[in-house]
């Protein structure tokens, strides 16, 4: 291969390389002595001991070789001696992509185990940025980055959907608390707290928004949420694109400054906290006068200051805590979550290793958006699964939405009997609400009364569980286990909602959705996909038909299912107790 035959993308990659290098990255590229001490720190390596290509030093060498060939003169003069190597073809760039995105979650665990202080995670982010610059990236990364650039948040949530969700959560909250004033304030000037969230909360977990709102309400906080620029997550961290990282951070900071908010509180999300609190100003190349804190610290403060009261006995399970890599290894947030958890749950069991030595949830570094690597990700989660299992806890608590998804996925894959939750949910559950708003429960108006819901799932257990649960809340349920029967049954029964599994023998959920959408008699029926195989999302979202109104990953608990079903059916209230 010669310079003349180098592909256009490879040329651009090499042109960009010197511009991406900082002293810290160069230090990490020249400082490795190939001692192998980081090998046993990587969850990929620990779960795949037979495959040495997962070793952090080997992965780092792929960028190091190119760096040496083009930047470090020892490699330019004696390339063979130091194994320096250039990049010529698009296929070589694809190989780099496989390593940078598919074999590393940028968890930084190897960095902390390198005696030389080699920060491979940062070097890998640099490699990702170089690849993204020339358009070589997993499809999911391209899609999410586009959404964050164009729509302003990484899940492409439209402003009207966001506002509608906040309104709906406000209705829920005021209904639950019996206080018409218990609402989510939007765009309040001079608020003490401006609360920013992860778009996942709007799309899949609105309960975490209402739980946070409940806590702010109980603390009598002067707070608000912005109507725009509310996403505190930042895909620039994962894609290595500093321009995107800087732009996303700038939007949020400028919104807080426009509102004259006194403090930006960042909801529980590891990469969101790291990006917003610790990285965005570096990417933007400028400091912003915005005071920030994690909602974990805010909640802890409320309890310590006596602004909210909690009763830990309300959280009855056994809990362990998973440190998000970004919180623990890049922001030092390890003690506050434990302190808070101990205040709201009586049975806390430490996970080993923990804090900055914890293993990655295996869904970090944007891995959840890269479905092509799902089998490898789940295989590499073996060490994490063993770590979770050894705690003996029934619930794993984490302060990160990404970890919630990563952990849920591996719990399902390794058939662990555990649930995942966040501190905000536990604090809200433990809240002691002033007596005047506690309503007597002599009877109930059931939330789903009068609604017909068809449950489609080939697994008998799931079918029974979802049907019974929805029926308990007043719905008339129609269980269907054969995907070939769905269209016929839907035409006959005209349900208000269909909950639809994706992976079914004979016909997958994507095909069923297509049939329903293409038939004029059933096209308006609302559909909520419930799947234990998130990697099959493509089967649904790659269709040209209208996407489903809801999406849930298994395992699904009662609260999550009901919240989402009511959201889709636009039902404002939970089961309402009535006086006899």
């Amino acid at each position, binding site marked *: 291969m010669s310079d003349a035959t180098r592909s256009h993308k490879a040329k651009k990659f090499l042109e960009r390389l010197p511009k991406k290098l900082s002293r*810290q990255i160069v*230090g990490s590229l020249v400082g490795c002595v190939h001692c192998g*001490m980081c090998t046993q720190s990587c969850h990929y390596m620990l779960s795949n001991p037979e495959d040495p290509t997962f070793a952090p030093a080997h992965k780092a060498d792929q960028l190091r070789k190119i760096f040496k060939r083009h930047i470090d003169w020892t490699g330019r003069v004696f390339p063979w*001696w130091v194994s320096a190597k250039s990049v010529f073809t698009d296929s070589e760039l694809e190989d780099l992509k496989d390593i940078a995105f598919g074999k590393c979650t940028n968890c930084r665990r190897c*960095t902390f185990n390198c005696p030389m202080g080699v920060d491979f995670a940062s070097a890998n982010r640099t490699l990702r940025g170089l690849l993204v610059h020339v358009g070589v990236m997993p499809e999911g990364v391209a899609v999410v980055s586009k959404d964050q650039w164009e729509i302003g948040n990484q899940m492409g949530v439209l402003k009207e959907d966001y506002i509608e969700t906040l309104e709906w959560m406000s209705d829920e909250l005021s209904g639950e608390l019996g206080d018409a004033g218990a609402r989510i304030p939007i765009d309040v000037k001079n608020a003490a707290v401006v609360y920013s969230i992860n778009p996942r909360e709007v799309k899949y977990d609105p309960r975490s928004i209402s739980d946070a709102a409940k806590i702010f309400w109980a603390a009598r906080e002067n707070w608000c949420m912005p109507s725009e620029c509310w996403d505190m997550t930042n895909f620039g961290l994962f894609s290595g694109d500093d321009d995107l990282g800087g732009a996303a951070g700038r939007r949020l900071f400028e919104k807080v400054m426009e509102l004259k908010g006194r403090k930006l509180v960042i909801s529980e999300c590891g990469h969101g906290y790291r990006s917003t609190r*610790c990285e965005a100003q570096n990417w933007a190349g400028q400091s912003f006068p915005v005071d920030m804190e994690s909602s974990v610290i805010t909640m802890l403060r409320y309890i310590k200051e006596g602004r909210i009261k909690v009763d830990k006995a309300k959280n009855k399970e056994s809990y362990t805590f998973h440190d998000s890599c970004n919180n623990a290894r*890049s922001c030092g947030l390890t003690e506050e979550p434990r302190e808070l958890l101990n205040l709201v749950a009586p049975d806390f069991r430490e996970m080993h290793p923990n804090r900055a030595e914890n293993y990655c949830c295996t869904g970090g570094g944007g891995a959840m958006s890269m479905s092509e690597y799902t089998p490898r990700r789940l295989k590499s989660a073996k060490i994490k699964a063993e770590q979770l299992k050894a705690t003996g806890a029934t619930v794993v608590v984490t302060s990160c939405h990404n970890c919630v998804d990563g952990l849920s996925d591996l719990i399902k894959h390794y058939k662990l009997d555990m649930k995942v939750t966040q501190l905000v949910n536990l604090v809200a559950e433990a809240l002691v609400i002033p007596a005047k708003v506690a309503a007597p429960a002599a009877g109930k108006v059931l939330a789903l009364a009068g609604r017909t819901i068809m449950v489609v799932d080939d697994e008998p257990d799931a079918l029974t569980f979802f049907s019974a649960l929805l029926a308990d809340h007043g719905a008339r349920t129609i269980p269907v286990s054969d995907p070939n029967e769905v269209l016929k049954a839907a035409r006959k029964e005209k349900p208000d909602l269909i909950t639809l599994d994706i992976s079914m023998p004979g016909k997958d959920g994507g095909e069923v959705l297509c049939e329903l959408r293409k038939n004029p008699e059933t096209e308006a029926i609302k559909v909520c996909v419930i799947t234990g195989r998130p990697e099959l999302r493509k089967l649904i979202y790659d269709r040209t038909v209208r996407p489903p109104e809801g999406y849930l990953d298994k395992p699904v608990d009662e609260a999550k299912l009901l919240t989402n079903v009511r959201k889709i059916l636009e039902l404002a209230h939970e089961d309402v107790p009535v006086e006899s």
Partner: protein
Amino acid sequence: MSESALLHFAQHRLQEAALLCMAVVYAFRIRWLLSFKDARDKQAPTGRGVVDPESGKYYSLANIAMPWAMESTRNSPFFYLQFAVFHLGVACAITLSFIIPYLPGLLELPPVVKAIQGFTAAAFVIGVGRMIRRIAVPVMRLISTPDDYFSLALLTVWFPFAFLAAPNDRGGGEGVLLTFFFLTAFFLVYVPFSKISHYLYYPFTRFWLGRTMGHRGVFPMRQPVHPR
């Protein structure tokens, strides 16, 4: 016994020239490293404010002497011990190259000679073990470059000559001393071009990592709670 002109040259002029060469190349290397932009944190420090963010740098630099601080060293104490002894062996051999020409009287003290011989002998054994590990363990083989093998071999061959040169005894001829000094000179000239230059980069990489992690309240690291 007086030394030959060749040995005198090897002990003095050759070493000085090699050291000068090393220093010049090092100066260029550091200038080159510092020519890249400094990615310094712009945000306010994180952490609970109970530790001085500055202390992260010192913690990071001292990390090498705290085997309990990293899982990789904590869980492999034998490996850490090897690392420590190997590097002490290097330090002894280098020091010897200064003692023989400038402070030969020190080598009349048997404990000094014994200490140098003890560390260089142990370092030799460790060097052989490391070479076997580099060749036999698939991960090590995969990540090793010709420079890695050569640098290790160079040191491993150098140690026995340091061991033999330590008594500074010319009774059996000057062969050992000459080989030791020529190897030392070659080592000094080769170092800046090889992976052995890691000790030049080490303070920088650890300082930068410590500065960032101290600013973020991660370093000094809160030790994880271990199972009872």
